[in-house]
């Protein structure tokens, strides 16, 4: 069963002079196992939307259900948080325990997982993010490097074994190799557990690489929610919203302009590479 947002709207500080509409009338479904990318200009409501999906924020109007649980009820929200994991921007700033082990175990422990299983989950999550358990479990999270801290924080969410994983710009502030590592990590996680992933990102190439579907937000409204082919086939609209195209889509557009018969709908690096190799040989 999916996460369903029905006509949700959200207003910050209603009925005051600072009133601001953050989301207006958004309907969106996150299907089981899919990878949904969310893109939009800064301030378009992406993070607000994400926080509605696990009940951290309540819509001013409209309804959110997770696997049929109505998030307007407190009990349902608590239950939903065990199914929907949310990774905030710069998750390394939420680390607080004395050891990496304890920090990763914080989530599962809150969910009431048995102690023997916690150990198994922590080791599994740490291995998944590439921090060898035997080296890291006893370390203080504050002694890790920046990249390791982020991975430890991600492991803290993975250990909760969510069926939906929400990520708010998980690659912000990482260098290219760190970015690639996070993407690879998400793909491994998905292959292993089959969980759905919703990811906000400003990096169009990363979105192009992973997403099955892309939701485009603009000033609190949902402009599009469609396959990457369709979203990236309308470059003018994206550029107008202050967004960008993936490098591969840019390249194929430029080649088309110069008279090369590149087919429409190419947005992935490997596709344009394959086409060029074929066309040039």
């Amino acid at each position: 069963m999916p996460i369903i947002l029905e006509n949700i709207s959200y207003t910050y500080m209603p009925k005051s002079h600072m009133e601001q509409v953050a989301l207006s009338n958004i309907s969106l479904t996150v299907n089981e196992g899919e990878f949904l990318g969310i893109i939009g200009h800064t301030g378009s409501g992406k993070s607000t939307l994400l926080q509605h999906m696990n009940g951290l924020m309540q819509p001013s109007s409209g309804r959110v259900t997770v696997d049929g649980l109505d998030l307007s009820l407190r009990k349902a929200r608590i239950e939903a948080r065990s199914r929907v994991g949310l990774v905030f921007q710069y998750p390394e700033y939420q680390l607080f325990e004395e050891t990496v082990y304890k920090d990763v175990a914080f989530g599962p422990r809150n969910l009431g997982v048995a102690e023997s299983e916690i150990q198994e989950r922590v080791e599994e999550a740490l291995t998944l993010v590439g921090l060898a358990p035997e080296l890291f479990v006893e370390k203080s999270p504050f002694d890790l490097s920046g990249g390791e801290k982020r991975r430890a924080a991600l492991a803290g969410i993975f250990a909760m074994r969510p069926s939906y994983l929400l990520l708010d710009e998980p690659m912000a502030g990482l260098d290219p190799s760190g970015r690639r590592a996070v993407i690879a990590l998400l793909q491994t996680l998905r292959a292993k557990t089959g969980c759905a992933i919703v990811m906000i990102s400003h990096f169009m190439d990363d979105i192009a690489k992973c997403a099955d579907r892309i939701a485009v937000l603009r000033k609190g409204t949902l402009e599009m929610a469609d396959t990457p082919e369709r979203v990236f086939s309308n470059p003018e609209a994206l550029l107008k919203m202050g967004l960008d195209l993936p490098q591969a889509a840019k390249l194929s557009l430029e080649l088309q302009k110069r008279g090369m018969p590149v087919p429409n709908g190419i947005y992935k690096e490997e596709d344009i590479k394959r086409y060029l190799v074929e066309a040039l040989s």
Partner: protein
Amino acid sequence: MTNITLGQYFPGNSSIHRLDPRTKILLMLLYIVLVFLVRDLWLFLLPLAFVGFVTLLAQIPLLYVLRSLKPLQFLLIFMFIINLFLTAGETVLLTIWRIRITKEALEQAVFISSRLVLLVGGTSLMTLTTSPISLTAGLELLLKPFSKLGFPSHELAMMMTIALRFIPTLMEEADKIKKAQLARGADFESGNLIARAKSMIPILVPLFVSAFRRADELAMAMESRCYHGGEGRTRMNVLRFKPADAAAAALLCSLGLAIVLLQAGH
């Protein structure tokens, strides 16, 4: 947690807003002395009229001034009741079971409450009409003479300014961390007092870590802009006393004189 306004500054550009912050601080002190000078209940009408006059000039809705009394309500009720029941007196007005309420006690209770209301209401006018930044600037200049005796007036003002600047930032940060921990299944609402205090650790540790990090970064940024304390430092907005400051001081002084004279005549 996000919609806490800092202090209670009510932005505006009235003649009261434009007064020198030093004048306002000094006159507030004088006003406090003045309220304590009053011995007769009816003489409270003078400071009351003054507060009304200033509120009118400052173009602040009366509601805002009254709102400053809100945190005081329990203290006010408590003081009123204590004074009503525990003051010795002769003229009995009312007897409920074994408790006697006397005229003197009632007068005393009304007197103390009026004094408290006037003190808080009047002084809140200063914070309502002065922004925290100009308040610290005024405080710095007022304390400057003491720096000859080794009192760190500039450093104190700088610390206050920085603290004020970072309160909203840290509030926002605390909110963010709280949400992140809620998403990890943290529970801040159930359990007894000890369990709840313990549940704050996942918020407080990251918050302190980030506050220290910010302090470090700020110190570095200040040093890279050659900050070296108050010596030889000039201000962008130089404070100068204007005729209006003299007028305000004269008004309050004559009010004080009136109170002293009227009571002396009694």
